[in-house]
């Protein structure tokens, strides 16, 4: 058994393990959210807010910056002024820090940055772990220390903070994103006195003495010339030379104090190994397990773990290798296309060459390099074994890949998936749950219960969905008598739990089940009736694998005690009962303690409900007597309909089914281009209730369709249909339109795409005269309507949309008659952002390019497997791309520049070719009015005509024009992103793009918080709101982005809130699009982070406006030209106190409970903010402006000066 009884253990994840040390060893912490490092910043902020001191007894100063670049700059300054500084980052965030990192290293400044390493975006963004970010920073001159486990993430954080002081070289401490940062494991904590001892006060004071001070001034940051720069650069060499020794000395000191020993390179395995893997990071755990198994079988294998990657000590490296070495495989968790090998491989080759040449290593072994684990791709013992097998071959493959099947370049190694090192005395449990049911929370609690309260070791790792609504979670838990370093997913579980019955028909939850495993199923069917309700495929696995099947109706128990959808406590109790890790009584007592710890602050009622759930859980748990044969006719559903296009069948379907790992390289696009309009093929069917239309009271307002965040309730207006053509259940009513009498309309739900958010019902204004609660749209149980609505929806899809030329696009009803080209996104149910995007797609989807900043909108907009941006019947649709978080405005401007250039060039060519294509056509094409749908339609026809005429022409100009002809049709560029982008990280670029005066449209989906990374404060966060990084309530008011933009004079600005004024939102989008200069529309977007019931998303927007918290306005530079005033306030003067609006949102109301005094003061100021702003806007409404605009706007307007006119030469007066 472990040393658990003797030593204190804590159960934490890698982020917390590292952050605790960083916070304790720092004075200034500059933070910025980025996955997967955000929790480190959040913890540091929360600890400082709670007054937790550092080792010097002071509370570290934590400041959120506008970007990682800003954080690095602030830290550079903090370091120059003598503070101990740290930050936390990953991926693109680290890349933004690189310029300052060069400076900080060049100035030999002691600091540590902690990195949860993550893939750098290339053909796609990925939030998952690999080393591409840290490898991009390896030339900065920072020491780089790699941690391969949660324990090491803590311990090496200490080593980094202590070593940097001695070495004066800054340290980048990194560990694998998610695999280590988010893995919960049992570790021995570093006690405070150990940390206190490790941080040498003399060195801290020396650091301070080197600081800039007017009391003993020096100059740093000089500019140097060819004469000295080079020499100065070399002057720092001795510090790098000594750093490895400093680190080893520090590691040794740490070992003396804690008993945990680390080395620059740690070898483990057979002492006379002939085949060795060199590796860095979490994958080492899987290799070590493999080695243990292989050495028992007599194989001479080992692994060398690299801990100090920079400065790379070639001598220490060679010294750590067994002399018997014959073949070495270097595994890199990154890809450097075009290089002779990946970075670690190259270092190893260089080191061995030098060491062999110097006679310090006996002979050059065979060295091969390979890539593994990009973007958290699984790396498990079967893969490690395949690498060792490869090393044993006479001609092993170099530059290989492992963990994928590469049928294009044939780099991949073959893997024997049956190889497993999972020992039988480890409980290996896999749980399938929904995000909303609390499965992960319960499992985290179970890991902590076992890790903290028993001598057993525990590990928890959690796999989340790429969708936010109805998200699937898979939890992988291990419990065992030895420290758990299985850094890969559970593959042969001896316990499987499926917390949602309906998962069975969509995914193979028993694929991971080992023989004889226990299978806990949350089932509405009791033990005697459940069998026939299981898909045949599930039944077969239960029989074949000899599983023991248990059922519990967790939902029933949860309902009885008032927990609703949170079935976690019930199932957690059942897990403990079945897993047999603790005896029942103790387990129940421990679960209750954990409940008290998690929920104690939330009051007695919450505790009592959960206690009741624990007490009642086991009454409902039953073992099913498994029949010997399958029964019933239920089968698993195919991931996509057989009618889906080929790519979806071949590729997307596998991803949906959770089998993306099996896709070969050849299946994937080479450049990251994917078909659009794929979300509609992934029928997730996650709603329990769907909206059902009652045509009798409908008033044709189209609001339900307008506000639907998921495009799952739609309106169509159409010519009457013969009764026998439509399904019997298909409903319609007469469309009330005097100009176009006789048309029909219908409102249709997409039953399998609806999330059941209820926003449509909330906004429906049509109430029954007899029974007010009955509206024209009502949420009703899906099961009762599914069959009919599926048929209705299929028929509905076949009804052609109207000709856009006949529709008043810039109106609520008109826009809603048009097809949405953004549908069924994976956004949260009730999302406040997506209705704007859907509206945008309806109004202009056939001609827009979208530059989308990283954030929620790029995730629900572009996260595979399926994406919502769609294609219309004419094949046209939004072309969408995401560049980065920080550069989105510039990215969109680039699109505009390209389009404009192509259009200009096309017009020039047209002029040249006028006689060949026909002067009339050329003329019309060049002077076409494209301000209306009809104008655009006609121009498209002309372009088609032009292409036909150009086809036979063979001149260079004709070929050019043919390739550029489409540019003659007006395109609209939309730059879309959230407030984190627009107000903070991307503001500089956004401002610059506005200043160019070019025709771009910027849509800011303003949730007033960094939504995608979990609710950190941005400069859009209003005063008094609680957010991460502002846990005590935001102290200052939100930035007025609209006014900053309006200050330019020639920028169209709209501040809108769809839920408050539908028509104003539609109008603002239309005006922004039609203004041929820069436009900004700032759209108030309700978000789950506001702490509201999202079904009332739109109502909240109404109150935000009514209280003056979010005034609606439009600033239209064209008004000036009409002799009007450009600024127009669209909302009415505030008619309710801001406090009444804020009282309904938890982001404000929580503070009232937590810190009533501050809340009262902040609320008073929030009211003053609203009143002051309203007063300011009222005055603006009377202000005239006459900005002259760009030179191009004037060309051809004014008379040119007469040629003979003398221009006055400038002369001094």
């Amino acid at each position, binding site marked *: 058994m472990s040393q658990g009884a003797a030593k204190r253990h804590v159960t934490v994840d890698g982020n917390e393990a590292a952050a605790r040390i960083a916070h304790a060893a720092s004075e200034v912490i500059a933070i910025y959210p980025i996955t997967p490092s955000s929790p480190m910043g959040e913890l540091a902020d929360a600890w400082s807010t709670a007054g937790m001191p550092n080792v010097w007894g002071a509370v570290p100063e934590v400041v959120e910056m506008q970007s990682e670049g800003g954080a690095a700059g602030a830290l550079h300054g903090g370091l120059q002024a003598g503070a101990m500084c740290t930050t936390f980052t990953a991926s693109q965030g680290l890349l933004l820090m690189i310029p300052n990192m060069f400076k900080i290293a060049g100035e030999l400044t002691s600091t540590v940055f902690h990195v949860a390493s993550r893939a750098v975006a290339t053909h796609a963004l990925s939030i998952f772990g690999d080393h591409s970010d840290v490898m991009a920073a390896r030339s900065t001159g920072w020491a780089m220390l790699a941690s391969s486990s949660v324990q090491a993430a803590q311990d090496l954080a200490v080593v980094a903070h202590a070593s940097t002081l001695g070495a004066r070289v800054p340290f980048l401490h990194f560990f694998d994103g998610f695999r280590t940062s988010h893995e919960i494991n049992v570790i021995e904590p570093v006690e405070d006195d150990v940390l206190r001892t490790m941080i040498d006060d003399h060195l801290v004071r020396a650091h301070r003495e080197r600081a800039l001070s007017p009391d003993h001034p020096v100059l740093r940051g000089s500019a140097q010339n060819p004469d000295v720069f080079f020499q100065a650069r070399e002057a720092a060499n001795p510090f790098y030379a000594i750093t490895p020794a400093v680190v080893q000395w520090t590691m040794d000191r740490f070992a003396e104090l804690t008993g945990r020993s680390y080395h620059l390179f740690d070898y483990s395995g057979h002492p006379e190994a002939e085949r060795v893997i060199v590796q860095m990071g979490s994958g080492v755990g899987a290799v070590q397990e493999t080695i243990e198994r292989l050495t028992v079988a007599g194989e001479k294998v080992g692994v060398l773990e690299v801990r100090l990657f920079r400065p790379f000590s070639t001598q220490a490296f060679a010294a750590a290798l067994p002399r018997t070495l014959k073949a070495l495989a270097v595994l890199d968790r990154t890809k450097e296309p075009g290089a002779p090998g990946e970075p670690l491989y190259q270092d190893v080759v260089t080191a061995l060459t030098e060491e062999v040449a110097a006679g310090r290593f006996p002979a050059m072994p065979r060295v091969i390099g390979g890539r593994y684990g990009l973007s958290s791709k699984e790396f498990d013992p079967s893969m490690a074994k395949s690498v060792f097998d490869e090393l044993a071959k006479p001609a092993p493959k170099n530059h290989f890949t492992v963990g994928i099947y590469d049928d294009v370049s044939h780099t991949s190694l073959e893997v024997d998936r049956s190889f497993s090192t999972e020992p039988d005395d480890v409980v290996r449990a896999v749980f399938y749950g929904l995000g909303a049911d609390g499965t992960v929370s319960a499992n985290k609690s179970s890991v902590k219960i076992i890790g903290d309260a028993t001598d057993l070791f525990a590990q928890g790792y959690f796999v989340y969905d790429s969708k936010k609504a109805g998200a699937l979670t898979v939890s992988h838990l291990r419990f065992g008598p030895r420290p758990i370093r299985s850094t890969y997913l559970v593959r042969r579980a001896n316990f499987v739990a499926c917390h949602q019955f309906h998962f069975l028909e969509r995914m193979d939850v028993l694929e991971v089940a080992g023989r004889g495993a226990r299978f806990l199923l949350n089932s509405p069917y009791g033990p005697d009736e459940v069998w026939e309700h299981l898909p045949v495929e599930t039944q077969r696995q239960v029989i074949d694998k000899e599983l023991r099947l248990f059922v519990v109706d967790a939902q029933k128990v949860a309902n009885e005690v008032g927990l609703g959808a949170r079935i976690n406590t019930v199932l957690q109790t059942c897990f403990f009962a079945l897993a047999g890790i603790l005896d029942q009584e103790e387990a129940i007592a421990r679960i209750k303690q954990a409940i008290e710890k998690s929920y104690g602050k939330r009051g007695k009622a919450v505790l009592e*409900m959960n206690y009741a759930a624990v007490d009642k859980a086991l009454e409902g748990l039953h073992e099913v007597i498994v029949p010997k044969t399958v029964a019933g006719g239920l089968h698993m559903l195919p991931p996509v309909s057989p009618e889906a296009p080929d790519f979806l069948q071949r590729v997307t379907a596998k991803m949906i089914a959770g089998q993306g790992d099996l896709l070969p390289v050849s299946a994937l696009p080479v450049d990251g281009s994917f078909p659009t309009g794929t979300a509609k093929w992934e029928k997730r069917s996650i709603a329990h209730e769907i909206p059902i239309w009652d045509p009798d009271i409908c008033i044709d307002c189209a609001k339900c369709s307008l506000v639907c965040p998921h495009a799952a309730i739609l309106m169509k207006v159409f010519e009457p249909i013969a009764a026998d053509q439509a399904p019997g259940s298909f409903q319609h009513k007469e469309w009330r339109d005097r100009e176009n009498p006789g048309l029909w309309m219908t409102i249709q739900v997409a039953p399998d795409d609806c999330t059941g958010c209820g926003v449509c019902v909330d906004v429906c204004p049509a109430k029954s005269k007899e029974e007010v609660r009955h509206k024209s749209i009502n949420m009703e149980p899906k099961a009762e309507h599914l069959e009919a609505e599926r048929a209705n929806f299929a028929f509905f899809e076949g009804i052609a949309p109207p000709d856009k030329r006949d529709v008043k696009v810039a109106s609520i009803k008109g826009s809603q008659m048009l097809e949405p080209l953004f549908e069924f996104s994976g956004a949260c149910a009730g999302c406040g952002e997506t209705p704007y995007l859907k509206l945008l797609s309806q109004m202009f989807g056939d001609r827009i390019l979208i530059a989308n900043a990283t954030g929620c909108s790029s995730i629900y907009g572009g996260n595979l497997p399926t994406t919502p941006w769609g294609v219309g019947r004419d094949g046209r649709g939004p072309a969408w791309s995401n560049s980065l978080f920080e550069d989105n405005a510039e990215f969109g401007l680039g699109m505009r520049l390209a389009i404009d250039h192509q259009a200009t060039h096309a017009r020039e060519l047209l002029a040249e070719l006028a006689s060949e294509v026909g002067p009339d056509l050329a003329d019309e094409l060049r002077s076409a009015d494209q301000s209306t749908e009809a104008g655009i339609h006609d121009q498209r026809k002309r372009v088609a005509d032009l292409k036909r005429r150009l086809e036979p022409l063979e001149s260079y100009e004709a070929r050019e024009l043919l390739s550029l002809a489409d540019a003659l049709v007006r395109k609209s560029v939309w730059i879309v992103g959230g407030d984190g982008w627009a107000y903070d990280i991307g503001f500089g670029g956004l401002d610059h793009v506005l200043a160019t005066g070019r025709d771009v449209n910027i849509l800011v989906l303003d949730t007033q918080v960094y939504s995608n990374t*979990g609710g950190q404060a941005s400069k859009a966060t209003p005063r008094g709101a*609680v957010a991460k990084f502002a846990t005590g309530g935001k102290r200052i008011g939100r930035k007025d982005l609209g006014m900053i933009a309006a200050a330019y004079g020639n920028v169209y600005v709209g501040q809108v809130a769809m839920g408050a004024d539908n028509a104003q939102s539609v109008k603002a989008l239309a005006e922004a699009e039609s203004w041929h200069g820069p436009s900004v529309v700032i759209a108030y977007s309700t978000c789950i*982070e506001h702490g509201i019931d999202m079904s009332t998303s739109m109502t909240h927007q109404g109150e935000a406006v009514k209280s003056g918290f979010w005034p609606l306005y439009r600033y239209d530079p064209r008004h000036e030209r009409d002799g009007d005033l450009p600024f127009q306030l669209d909302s009415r003067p505030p008619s309710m106190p801001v406090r009444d609006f804020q009282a309904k949102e938890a982001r404000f109301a*929580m503070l009232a*409970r937590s810190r009533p005094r501050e809340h009262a003061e902040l609320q008073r100021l929030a009211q003053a903010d609203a009143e002051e702003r309203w007063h300011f806007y009222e005055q603006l409404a009377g202000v005239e402006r006459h900005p002259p605009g760009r030179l191009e706007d004037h060309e051809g307007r004014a008379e040119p000066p007469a040629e003979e006119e003398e221009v006055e030469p400038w002369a001094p007066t």
Partner: protein
Amino acid sequence: MGADLRTRYLGMELPNPVVPSASTLSSRIDTLKRLQDAGASAVVMQSLFEEQIEREGLEIHLVLERGTESFAEALTYLPELEDYNIGPEAYLRHLELTKRELEIPVIGSLNGSSPGGWVRHARLIEDAGADALELNVYFVAADPDLTSAEVEQLYIDLVEAVRSSVEIPLAVKVGPFFSSMANMARRLVEAGADGLVLFNRFLQPDIDLETLDVDPTLHLSTSEELRLPLRWIAILRGRVDTSLAATTGVHTWEDAVKLLLAGADVTMMASALFKHGPEHVTTVLDGIRTWLDEHEYESVEQAKGSVSQAACPDPVAFERSNYMRAVVNYTSPYDWRAAPSEPRA
């Protein structure tokens, strides 16, 4: 001046019969001090709502859990704060502070929903230093299966349970909706109530004619509403041996005097104080004093109950549906002719 304003309420000797009733006026210490300075003889604290505490806890729980552990980039959406002050602690701390800062008696007020909760919170209020406790019982018996006898028994059980768990004087504030108010009053007193507070006012539903939403609101009372407590205090005075407090509709000194005459030991006001400010207490007290002096009453005690049902010349008037008399009065040709434009006194 002359008349002695002292009165006894719940066994406490109070300098006068004007007490601010349970309302948000008691949420700020400075307001409470102004009330004391204006002459309030005691103060009833805002109610501790057990149901509200529970609901707030559940709502915070719901909000903090919503959307969590679903999406890898955002495992939570709102920060976990140090404390949400769910539970009675904030109320009790405020009560302790009030007790420290004021010289006049402080009466705690409790509005509960579960038997356990009533007893637990009553004790906590006592421990926080309240001089007395007012149980504010309100319950809409909407269930057709629930008989009036069962409803009444709920009240009795409750009062007995709380009585047996606290030492301080206990007042029970109830609504008028009992088939037999007088019998109920006596049973409440037998169950352990030291006083009755007649009557409570709670949210009443309203319908918004635009949205057709049902909106429970609380409007400030008017003097008109004092007729109901006036009747029942007059009836109960002398019949049930207990302290009687009148609340609802007490706005002016005239209102207060009427209630005292009917038999109230104290008169409680809130709406008038919201309208006119805490200093309105002084105006009311001055008015009471002046009236007593002008009508040559020596003291409140002397006037108290002098027009109760038992003491008045026309006892039936309190029981009669006053409608007949009112109709006669209003239709009297004499009145119409005599003072066509005079407001009726």
